[in-house]
């Protein structure tokens, strides 16, 4: 089923009996969809495990050459990497199932702790990016649909392709060049200036989401500083998804604009601008909800690059640090953990989509 198909007229009211049946189907959909999370996680975790082991044990990979052969063998023995691969695999599956994603080699921290420390920063960045994507993508998509096949439409479509064609790290570097180095309006990197960062990390029950913490402290200067640091990373990452939203909105609004009910509204004398922003937009937004799941996966991948570019101390920044340190246990753990997060978000998004659009669950 293509979820991008254009939604038809809003569903009519259904008699009570039918509603009950529909609810059953919805419940069945949610249960089946929930059960599908497990094979998804299982497949991804297994794939990551076996791919990572093709290069041998992680200790030789990261410490080989730095330790003597005897030390190396002792550490491999201690970590259990000398046992048969299948034994290690089942042990790993058991660990993952109980929420243990391993301990990093380079700085000896549990991967789950890395997530707890830096996950909030990545979440904050992804939320900023989604906000940018909505603000930029949807209105521009409506404009493009309204002026379809005229030159502003062409300009907007090229803009959407450019959003896709520009790697986030290059977009980030360009934004830095213009707004930080050139104009000096915004900070170059980091999540807050050094003094404020210290202040925020000293709050007793910090959420880790700097904007929330700053709002709680209530100092306008602090809030301003946090927001100023968020603008460029948010825009760099958000534009990637903005392009997708723009195109989706355009295609679907063009589709709904040719529907009978829109024609009917037009013949009643509803203004063209209102037709686009009201009548055609709402059903056209459903496909956007369904792609958000995939977009979050894309944003997490993009966050690795964005955080590296802006030294944004999140999960992605840590991941690239571990990559540089060749710490393969940490990489495996973080990627496996992200697989779980992606599987869960996709489940939630699918359920929301099913609640909104009845056609999804049938």
């Amino acid at each position: 089923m293509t979820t991008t198909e254009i939604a038809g007229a809003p569903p009519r009211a259904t008699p009570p009996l039918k509603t009950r049946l529909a609810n059953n189907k919805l419940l069945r959909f949610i249960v089946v969809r929930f059960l599908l999370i497990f094979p998804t996680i299982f497949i991804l975790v297994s794939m990551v495990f076996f791919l990572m082991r093709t290069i041998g044990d992680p200790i030789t990979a990261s410490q080989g050459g730095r330790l003597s052969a005897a030390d190396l063998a002792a550490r491999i023995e201690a970590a259990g990497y000398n046992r048969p691969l299948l034994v290690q695999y089942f042990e790993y599956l058991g660990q993952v199932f109980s929420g243990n994603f391993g301990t990093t080699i380079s700085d000896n921290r549990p991967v789950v702790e890395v997530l707890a420390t830096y996950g909030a920063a990545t979440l904050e960045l992804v939320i900023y990016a989604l906000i940018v994507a909505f603000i930029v993508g949807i209105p521009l998509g409506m404009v493009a649909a309204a002026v379809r096949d005229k030159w502003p439409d062409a300009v907007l479509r090229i803009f959407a392709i450019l959003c896709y064609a520009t790697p986030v790290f290059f977009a980030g570097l360009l934004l830095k060049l213009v707004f930080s180095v050139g104009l000096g309006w915004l900070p170059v990197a980091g999540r807050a200036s050094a003094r404020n960062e210290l202040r925020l990390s000293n709050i007793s029950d910090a959420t880790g989401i700097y904007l929330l913490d700053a709002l709680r402290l209530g100092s306008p200067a602090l809030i301003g500083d946090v927001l100023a640091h968020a603008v460029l990373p948010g825009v760099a990452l958000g534009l990637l998804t903005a392009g997708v939203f723009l195109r989706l909105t355009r295609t679907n609004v063009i589709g709904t604009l040719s529907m009978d009910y829109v024609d009917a509204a037009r013949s009643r004398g509803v203004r063209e601008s209102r037709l686009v922003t009201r009548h055609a937009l709402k059903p056209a937004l459903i496909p956007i909800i369904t792609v958000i799941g995939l977009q979050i996966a894309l944003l997490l991948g993009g966050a690795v690059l964005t955080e590296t570019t802006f030294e944004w101390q999140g999960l992605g920044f840590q991941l690239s640090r571990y990559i540089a340190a060749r710490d393969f246990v940490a990489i495996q753990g973080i990627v496996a953990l992200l697989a779980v997060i992606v599987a869960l978000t996709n489940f939630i998004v699918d359920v929301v989509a099913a609640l909104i659009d009845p056609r999804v669950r049938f």
Partner: protein
Amino acid sequence: MNTQKKGLRDRLRGLPVVHQLRQSVGLQRAMLVVGLVITGVFILTAIFAPLLAPYGYAQIRDDNGTFGAQQEPNAKHLLGTTVGGFDVLSRVIWGTQTALLVMIVAVVLSIFLGVLLGLVSGYVGGWLDRVLVVIADAVYAFPSLLLAIIAAIAISGGQSSFWGGILAAALSITVVFIPQYLRVIRAETVRIKAEAYVESAKVVGASSARIMFRHVFRNATRSLPLILTLNTSEAVLTLAGLGFLGFGIEPTSAAEWGYDLSKATSDVTSGIWWTAVFPGAAIVLVVLGITLVGESLNDLADPRLRTRRKAGSGPALTAETTSVAGGSLDDLVPLSGLEGKS
């Protein structure tokens, strides 16, 4: 003589891209032409890189001594030099070769494996089909860059020579692409399997392999050109992303834009713009060109999106390719995962 010429021209018109070029009008034609020109320039640059580049990609000195690091663009180095003392222009030009090679290897590999799996999955059906679809969906929903990182580690331990690096990048991209081909080809195969000519082939007694590769394959691959253009552009982006994170090809083995950008990150802070802007612009241009071609082909194949010629200005032409889910950026939507059940 004359008829021969005419026959040749007709055949030329029947070629995929030429056909669409003739079919298109107005803005759509402009976008297609711009895309074709950029892609053409890119391919020519890659082929003639040794002639076009003023210096080698790993060259840091000539007869007058070393180039010097972070030189501003000047007469000798038109686009300046990098922090490592390489000539930026030369590395941008040589980078086209790396990008093109990775694209070709990645697309050939993923088409081969993806089409094979898609045909088998769709034709055989049953539990094999369900398992393959669930795996493909799981892989598809995962951030492709992260998967590519893992694949790059598995293939080369993260750092490599020229061909090692090209293969590592291409294979990691392949892992990400296979599910897309699998899904599209599988969907087509399931549709074609019910066609009368497949039935009759079965009745005649053709083997499963023969039916799959002769009858189904020929008809299921019409949609490939569209996905192909999208995947080549994604290959460039993934290669750059890997390079940016330090999984690229060593600078002495080949020129790679993502690597150059990662080295330029600190330059930007001190206002040195030429080391970042040019390799980045090269990535954007190549992806833009290829995407414009793919987009235009997809639009022309979709009657809802195709701009028609004004009435009376020549006969209406229909495209040979069909538009497919996954064939356009607009269709980047995961299967619900329940697909195998219906």
